[in-house]
């Protein structure tokens, strides 16, 4: 009887070993999920409000812990006059209330007020440039932590001083990233969001490089920024701007370009990519993703 009991205990131990030692099941448990919604380009035209609302409802249905946006929230403040730019931010802030979970925003180039000049914006306007974004939406770069993962939202669009923008992480942010990392455990998994990509290969096969200002297409000092994360557990860089869907994995870091909620800025799918958003699920130290086509059909007019 004693040996029977011992055997049964052995059996049980064996079973638990199979369960837990062999497969590290706890590492595969999904701790939380995120919807990454980028290049929304909300506007009163092209049924964009209806489309964005539909996307938010689809995201709500997936019950993510929170939504991150990837920039180009509105279309467009860059070259708009004050009334248009102001009303677009109001519109965005109104539509985003459809989300039933917290929303963490990232600033895009189209969210910068007036620097392309044609709208006649006054540089002395208290909301000129990025100030409209910071007043209406919040900080243009910041960090937060969720379930052991650290998320760093970056401001990647820089006024180039020549009436447009370029992809750049400015020196203040570089200092801020250094400080943030000093207070971050090296094992903490990190996620960056940046509107303008650090890395993407699709432009090279879908678009003609000739004559295009690459500085507006990529973060020009991406290498410098990535170097700061050397020795840290950077897992994922979520990117917008290109409206492509692409996942580049090199040296343990995924650079994922998250398509566009607006597809081709509400004129239909962009190239082969439908209107959609990324849905990501996170485990203790890993993640997986899929692109969700929320079923929008662009108005034909």
């Amino acid at each position: 009887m004693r040996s029977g009991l011992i055997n049964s205990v052995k059996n049980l131990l064996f079973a638990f070993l199979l369960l837990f030692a062999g497969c590290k099941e706890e590492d595969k448990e999904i701790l939380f999920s995120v919807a990454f919604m980028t290049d929304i380009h909300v506007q009163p035209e092209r049924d964009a409000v209806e489309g964005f609302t539909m996307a938010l409802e689809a995201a709500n249905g997936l019950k993510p812990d929170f939504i991150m946006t990837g920039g180009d929230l509105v279309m467009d403040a860059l070259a708009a006059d004050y009334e248009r730019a102001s009303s677009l931010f109001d519109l965005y802030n109104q539509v985003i209330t459809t989300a039933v979970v917290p929303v963490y925003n990232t600033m895009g180039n189209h969210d910068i007020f007036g620097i392309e000049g044609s709208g006649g914006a006054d540089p002395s306007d208290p909301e000129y440039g990025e100030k409209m974004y910071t007043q209406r939406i919040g900080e243009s770069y910041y960090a937060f932590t969720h379930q052991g993962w650290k998320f760093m939202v970056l401001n990647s669009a820089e006024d180039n001083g020549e009436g447009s923008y370029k992809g750049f992480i400015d020196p203040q942010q570089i200092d801020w990233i250094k400080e943030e990392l000093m207070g971050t455990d090296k094992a903490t998994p990190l996620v960056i969001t940046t509107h303008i990509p650090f890395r993407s290969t699709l432009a090279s096969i879908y678009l003609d490089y000739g004559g295009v200002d690459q500085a507006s297409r990529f973060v020009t000092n991406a290498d410098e920024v990535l170097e700061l994360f050397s020795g840290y557990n950077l897992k994922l860089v979520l990117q917008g701007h290109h409206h492509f869907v692409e996942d580049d994995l090199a040296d343990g870091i995924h650079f994922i370009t998250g398509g566009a909620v607006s597809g081709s800025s509400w004129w239909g799918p962009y190239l082969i990519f439908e209107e959609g958003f990324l849905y990501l699920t996170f485990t203790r130290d890993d993640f997986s993703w899929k692109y969700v086509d929320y079923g929008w059909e662009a108005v034909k007019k």
Partner: protein
Amino acid sequence: MFKKPLYYLVPIKIIVLILIFSDTGCKRDKADKDAFSMAFVTDIHLQPELNAVAGFEKALDTINDLKPDFIIAGGDLIMDALGAQYDRADSLYNLYLKTIRKAEMPIYNTMGNHEIYGLYGRSGADPEHPEYGEKIYEKRLGETYYSFTHKGWKFMILNSVEDTGNEGYVGLIDSAQILWIKEELVRTDPSTPIVISTHIPFISAMVQIENGSTVANDSSLVVYNSKEIIDLFKNHNLKLVLQGHLHIVEEINIDGVHYITGGAISGGWWKGPYMWSEEGFVFVTFSKDDFTWRYVDYGWEVNK
């Protein structure tokens, strides 16, 4: 001696069985009769120098232990025929053919730039030589592009290296191959999963990684008409493009197609790891319509 049945143990045993067979345990690959595996070994750069033969043999030993159904070699099998004199090129091909006999499974070869004999003037090669250019490869190893099918998957091996005619090469799938691909696809069911092997990559972020985010690719680093080739597969089930040439391990996932650059058996040309990539190979496990992969560091250490 009478032994009382240990009835109280029955529920425990049932629990054990449930635990073992239930889904709460880690998901085991279901026994799939269509499942198979392969090793993608690229950028071997075999040569009598730098202990390369011992290194490649170690890689093949590791592969033999993993028992894949077959091996695909991704090109740059030898170092080097491009700028070599005939005797050297000849002996390297012989060395390669001798060394791969160690493999206990079939090998499907892909041609790389370093296999082309005499393209560089320093080789002193005569363009009239019967083994000049790609001919040495065709004579020794076979066709430079071909296809085969294995357990429902179609594998297409491409020749991605084009002689520029002025002592150089570019990444290109030539018009003869484009015609051949079109013919092959006419005969291929649109649902058949397809794998391509190409020495020069279709897509890579290598240049951005190495030289900065705004730097464009060079035509000797990637196949410059790759978009045209990818578009040929638009209505087919292209799943995987296995790539060599760059010696880095990288995976790019676009529109359901995985572009995997498979590191290098030789690492940094037998002088140690290259960037973040150890000496290694890609081991791919296939199911009916999907695959998983990992990079296997076979443990080579360069003698300093």
